């Protein structure tokens, strides 16, 4: 009799565990508040604010994209207009928790955005309202050959000064003789460079311990985006194309990884 009671109790507990586990998993997977600025579920809460040109029906609308030439503009910045031509998204994430949290930000992969190219750059509370400046810094040898070309960014201070930081090494593309025949190949190379850079940037934002923040602290970053004509698979009506760009942020209690003895993993957490 006792055995039967034990089996019954075990069965009930198993069902309860499965039910709660399933529900928890379901909640975790689907409690994504789309088109909301702040979220709070259970004991983790935070705020994600994305600002663009305009907001229509709770959706950010950036209507100022412009096509750029990936070599003249992106790699060589020939007209020094790469920053001017950029459409910008400013993203800030604030944790309202008393305990340490990490933030995992997911942005669309460039493979899903044929016709669009973007880069992620750091921002801070002090720089978030400043204009961003991009430049190509080159190093040349004695014969004048460019041995290194790096895309750099900085913020234009009120006195006009800019301190630049390295973004992407574009040396290989800088020295390529681009013709109409091989422009497609060089474009793929550029997109690969940019995709790798973005992935590393977002991954570092999540895994680097220096980015752990607690209550009332915020994380800022900026997304600069341009039209990329050469990656379009269909150039029909290229001027009226619209891209859907989803910004997803996941706040994860940092202590979780510590207590479980694991390390944060951008792809798997």
């Amino acid at each position, binding site marked *: 009799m006792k055995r039967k009671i034990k089996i019954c109790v075990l069965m009930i507990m198993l069902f*309860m*565990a499965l039910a709660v586990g399933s529900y928890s998993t379901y909640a975790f997977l689907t409690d994504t508040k789309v088109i909301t600025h702040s979220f709070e579920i259970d*004991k983790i809460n935070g705020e994600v604010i994305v600002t663009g040109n305009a907001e229509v029906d709770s*959706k950010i*609308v950036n209507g100022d994209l412009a096509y750029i030439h990936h070599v*003249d503009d992106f790699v060589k910045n020939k007209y020094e207009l790469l920053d001017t*031509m950029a*459409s910008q998204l400013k993203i800030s994430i604030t944790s309202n928790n008393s305990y340490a949290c990490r933030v995992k930000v997911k942005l669309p992969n460039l493979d899903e955005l044929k016709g669009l190219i973007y880069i992620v750059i750091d921002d801070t509370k002090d720089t978030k309202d400043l204009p961003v400046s991009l430049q190509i810094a080159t190093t040349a040898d004695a014969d004048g050959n460019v041995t290194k070309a790096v895309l750099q960014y900085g913020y234009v201070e009120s006195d006009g000064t800019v301190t630049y930081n390295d973004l992407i090494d574009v040396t290989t593309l800088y020295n390529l003789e681009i013709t109409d025949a091989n422009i497609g190949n060089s474009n793929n190379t550029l997109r690969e460079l940019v995709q790798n850079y973005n992935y590393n940037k977002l991954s570092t934002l999540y895994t680097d311990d220096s980015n752990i923040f607690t209550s009332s602290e915020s994380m800022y970053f900026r997304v600069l985006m341009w039209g990329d004509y050469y990656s379009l698979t269909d150039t029909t009506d290229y*001027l009226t194309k619209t891209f859907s760009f989803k910004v*997803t942020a996941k706040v994860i209690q940092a202590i979780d990884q510590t207590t479980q003895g694991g390390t944060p993993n951008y792809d798997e957490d």
Partner: protein
Amino acid sequence: MMKTNNKKLCATLLCVLVLVVFITSATYAWLSIEGSKDVDASFGDFKVAVDVKNDDTNGVLVEGLYKVNGLSQGDYEAIEDSISAEGELKTYYEDLAKYPYIDTLKVSVKVTSEIAGYMRVKILDEWQVTRDYINFDKVSQEAIFRATDEDSFMFNLGAGWVYDPVTKYCYYSKLINKGEETFSFIDGGSFYTPKVSSYFIETCEVTLALEVEVVQANRFEALWGIEEIPQPKEVTGNA
């Protein structure tokens, strides 16, 4: 006895396992949270409006006053974005004190831009002088032309505009930023002074058309075929 203990141990382990699953699942649900925001990104364009007016209230100086709103896309391959607006201006020799009326002509261009761009305008003008011989019931007409493009340019261009005799366009020398801005393009001018004598009276009739082109800033070289936007010449003083 041993068998009973094993069963108890198994049952306890199973309970602990179930409990761990339960706690882990429940805890994990509030250890992370996710939010997202949708963004729609589309391409910017330009809107151009040309306004022609004459600020002289005493004379009827402008016929065919026009105001045109045109749409101009952030073009990439071809100049499809130029707008052409035509109007007719007539200067009448009616009042010697007000002569010449072209002095009071004002043309402005309003650009509403979602992306940075450059602008140029082509002036397509025709000048015709009609001479009315008072006592002879005779009228003659003659088309007149500028001697050279550069020296005899007949309209005073607003600040920031540069006429390029090679391409025959007037370029706005500065970058047009996002937003709405009105640029003074023509502010009066002079070219031909109608003559009056006891034998005849001249009337100069000007037909003016403007062609405005705005291009996204990084494409001016590809579309306009110039390496740089013409800049005003620096004025150097005498030593």
